[in-house]
């Protein structure tokens, strides 16, 4: 049957971290939205470790919060341990990280979705997409119910032809205990979308009461936790606006009752077990064809590639307050179960540990992200958007930010308004999307701060300022919060200016701050400002020279970033463009000259030529009107 004659504005397929943000963003913009997921008990489930944030990822979550995303606040109110990473280094490379109560996180998000106006949730597995004249118009499900939508956002994570490996043992599924979405892959391929295989893995989960923590070192949370959401620009009504409707979602005061993680390590015996059984590992026996990441080696990889390293550090992370389950960070493997048992038991404190779930590797289909525009819309099929792990990324945060961008742009598409394009120079979200759509990826892509050219400008505290324009253009934040951000920004600007211009002892205040660094004296009135304002002011002043340098580079490049290339631009017709460039450009269809300039094989002379031509066409357009 066809469920609806009047199509939804946006249909989101898959309620993982990407799908959830996509659905919320779209419905909050006022679009009629449907969220389909194979099992709504696993909405926003953390497939791997129970933690959000960390280096680069933490900054992205704050950026997401600046665009009205839900991940930050959910993490804050369901977090059970908070740590600021790189506290001894400068603000630009400090990042918040939190252990979450896995179930509380999920339940809270599910509840948030349920209470969201304009959003409908339905449990069904999408088996194929409906196309009409090169456009997507809806989807089919395993329940033989078809849903019509003006746009479709695919956020199916690791589920497309998901295949899990434990030694020689194979099971179909996107995650242990979950299903595998099989027919959707062929439906995508039929529409000309190219798929390929990637691989990732996860460690075993253990029963807490079978662990001897006395043999391990404790890692506590910060006494002064750093949160993900910007609480200072939110009124209390915003944090709890849904509660006002009478419902009480799960969650607690951010930072209350933190729990500990525990550190242990592998032993000589662990290494021996791994080496003796290497041939039984799915990864080493050739069972797995998908490409795994360089940065997340399984324990077998670690012992093979870093043979001279005697031991490897392991973290035991609690999965929540209401469970005794622990995640063993550092022990990802695809060795057979019996070997896993020996492996675990060779570790100090885990001699008698009971496994609740085995470690496994999973292979899945992903769609080459170079087939997308920076709006995350498919170049092959109009009105079809992709976000999350299906684009070749890895990580909840990476998925979530794409979800929001795809959700917003699906609505823009329906409303025929310009897509929200986030530039490389605006934040990690921009770097992520630009890397994906212009360079593509050969391994599960994870964000690192080193991927950003303008890392110093991307300190987590400035995310709201950096994304304010987008938030205003696309109406992603409440008016009240926008007002608060603007007021905060005005204060920061005022104080930076004040410190640079007014004298303290031996030069300006700014000179003194740059000279004395941490120990610097600040004007009393500045000390009375809120910590976020103060921190941002001091950061901008102390790193002034370097920040100005990055800002200059940004400005130098911003000109070509703003020049849009018409979608139907006829590259082969351009006189003077080299054939190689012309072919590449025609294939990639860059949206801006900036993007074109980053495509490998396109040289500066090509860009000059395009710039002149595009300028000319724009000029002609003006003449005509």
């Amino acid at each position: 049957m066809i469920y609806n004659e009047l199509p939804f504005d946006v249909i989101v397929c898959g309620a993982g971290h990407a799908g959830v943000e996509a659905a919320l963003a779209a419905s909050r913009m006022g679009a009629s939205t449907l969220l389909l997921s194979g099992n709504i008990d696993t909405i926003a489930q953390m497939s791997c470790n129970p933690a959000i944030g960390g280096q680069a990822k933490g900054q992205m979550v704050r950026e997401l919060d600046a665009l009205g995303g839900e991940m930050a606040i959910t993490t804050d109110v369901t977090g059970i341990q908070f740590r600021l990473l790189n506290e001894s280094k400068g603000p630009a490379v400090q990042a918040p990280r939190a252990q979450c109560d896995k179930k509380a996180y999920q339940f809270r998000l599910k509840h948030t979705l349920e209470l969201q106006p304009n959003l409908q949730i339905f449990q069904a597995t999408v088996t194929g997409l409906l196309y009409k004249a090169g456009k997507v118009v809806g989807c089919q499900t395993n329940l033989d119910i078809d849903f019509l939508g003006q746009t479709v956002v695919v956020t199916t994570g690791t589920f497309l032809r998901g295949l899990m490996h434990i030694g020689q043992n194979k099971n179909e599924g996107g995650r242990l205990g979950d299903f595998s979405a099989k027919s959707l892959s062929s439906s995508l391929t039929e529409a000309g979308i190219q798929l390929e295989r990637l691989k990732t893995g996860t460690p075993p989960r253990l029963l807490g009461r079978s662990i001897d923590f006395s043999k391990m070192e404790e890692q506590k949370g910060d006494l002064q936790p750093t949160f993900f959401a910007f609480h200072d620009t939110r009124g209390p009504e915003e944090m709890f606006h849904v509660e006002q409707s009478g419902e009480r979602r799960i969650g607690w005061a951010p930072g209350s009752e933190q729990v500990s993680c525990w550190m242990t390590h592998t032993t000589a015996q662990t290494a021996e077990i791994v080496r003796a059984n290497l041939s039984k590992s799915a990864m080493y026996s050739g069972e797995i064809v998908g490409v795994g990441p360089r940065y997340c080696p399984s324990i077998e990889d670690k012992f093979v590639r870093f043979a001279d390293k005697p031991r490897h550090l392991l973290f035991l992370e609690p999965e929540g307050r209401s469970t005794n389950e622990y995640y063993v960070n550092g022990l990802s493997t695809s060795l057979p179960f019996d070997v896993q048992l020996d492996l675990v038991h060779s570790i100090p404190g885990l001699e008698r540990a009971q496994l609740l779930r085995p470690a496994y590797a999973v292979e899945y289909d992903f769609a080459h992200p170079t087939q997308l525009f920076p709006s995350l819309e498919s170049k092959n099929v109009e009105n079809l958007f992709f976000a999350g792990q299906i684009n070749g990324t890895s990580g909840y945060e990476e998925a979530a930010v794409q979800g929001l961008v795809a959700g917003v742009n699906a609505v823009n598409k329906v409303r025929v308004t310009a897509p929200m394009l986030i530039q490389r120079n605006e934040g990690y979200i921009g770097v992520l999307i630009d890397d994906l759509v212009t360079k593509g990826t050969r391994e599960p892509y994870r964000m690192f701060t080193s991927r950003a050219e303008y890392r110093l400008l991307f300190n987590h505290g400035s995310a709201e300022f950096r994304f304010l324009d987008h938030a205003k253009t696309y109406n992603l934040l409440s008016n009240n919060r926008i007002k608060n951000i603007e007021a905060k920004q005005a204060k920061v600007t005022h104080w930076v200016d004040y410190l640079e211009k007014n004298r303290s002892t031996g030069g300006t205040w700014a000179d003194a701050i740059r000279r004395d660094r941490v120990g610097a004296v600040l004007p009393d009135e500045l000390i009375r400002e809120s910590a976020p304002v103060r921190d941002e002011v001091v950061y901008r002043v102390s790193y002034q020279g370097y920040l100005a340098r990055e800002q200059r580079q940004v400005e130098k490049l911003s000109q070509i970033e703003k020049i849009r290339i018409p979608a139907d631009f006829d590259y082969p017709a351009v006189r003077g463009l080299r054939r190689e460039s012309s072919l590449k450009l025609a294939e990639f269809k860059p949206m801006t000259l900036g993007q074109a300039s980053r495509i490998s094989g396109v040289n500066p002379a090509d860009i000059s030529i395009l710039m002149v031509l595009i300028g000319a066409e724009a000029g002609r357009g003006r003449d005509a009107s």
Partner: protein
Amino acid sequence: MPRSSDTIAALATPAGTSALALVRVSGPDTAGFAQDIFGAPPPPRHALHADYRAKDGRLVDDVVATFFPAGNSFTGEDSLEISCHGNPFIAQTILEDLFARGGRPAGPGEFTQRAFLNGRMDLSQAEAVMDLIHARSERALAAANQQLRGGLGRRLNDLTERLLGALARIEAYIDFPDEDLPKEDRAIVRRTLESLAAETERLLATSHYGELLRDGIKTVIIGAPNAGKSSLLNRLVGHERAIVSAEPGTTRDFIEERIIVGPHCLRLIDTAGLNPAPGSIEKLGMDKSLERAAEADLILLVLDATTALPTLPEFLAKLLSTDRTLVALNKSDLLKSESFDLEIYSNLRSVSISALTGAGIDPLITEITRMVDFFQPTGQDDVIAINARHADALTRAKVSLQAALANLAASGPVELLASDLRGTLAAYGDILGKVDNERMLDQLFATFCIGK
């Protein structure tokens, strides 16, 4: 369209020797540059004949400069056209100086691009120029590739790889604070950076347009007293364009003048006469002459065709190799017969001249040029000729390496250290092509064990 934020400069006439070379400057700093170079703001659209003074105050050339204020110029921005003598060394010195002042090398077709964007050109004009951009960039590309396949490319690739290694060691501790990394070892990083700084410096020093331009090709004039050495020097200086001395007022043992010969810059050094039976004071001067001759890139041996040939000290005779010695057979005006027996010097190239009348000077110049064309910059193990654009990039690489080293010494913030190293990487990349961050990550994940 937002105005360009930076100022670009480039040679507008084709590279090579022509009578005049045109250097074009465009962008917001143009007026400031002109003010500093010429000492006074140039009047708009009026050809100004003036001395071009480099940033360090030294005179480069007398030039004709024309300033075009924004709106009325080719690009539509403030721009300046500097017409200098057509020797590439002069043009390169001017370009290097403009880069040192904060200008940057113009990209292919960038002037045209700016002109178009500022509405100074219509479509058909722009299209015509596009063909040119294409042709030019192909040529430039071919030239650059040739260079990069050679010593410079190999050397820079090696530097880049080592820099990536150092950067990976820094980035690992920024991006993976939670990992079980070995204790951070900044000493390794420091040693790498020091060697990179030294090698970058050395590359810069091999610059054809650096060293040879600063110093010129050392050309020592030797001969017996009264053979006409000083007369020849004066004749050459009068005949060719002399460059005003770089260090005015310094006392020198020798008369020294610089002239431009074809595409080359010669540093002419007059010496005391070589007297077979010298007195003690003369002896002193002669020893110095011999020292000079030993360091010479090129020796001009002046012989008086009207007198018996002098017997030269054995030591000197050995220096007179055929590839760098030219005999000027002087005072041809006094000679009746055309033929002259060079005796022991008969294996050397010789030109008959008259320093007095100027006869034979043109053939002498031709002969000098032919000889010098075979010269390579001296010094390094393999020959690397870098141009002004390369020198600009290498200078930026050096500056950011030095900043990084200063930061290391002061135990400054690590993200700033990384920022400087990325600056260095970008500068190397301006020569080699952009270096993808993936290459740093490759080194990082090969060096450190990172994973969950």
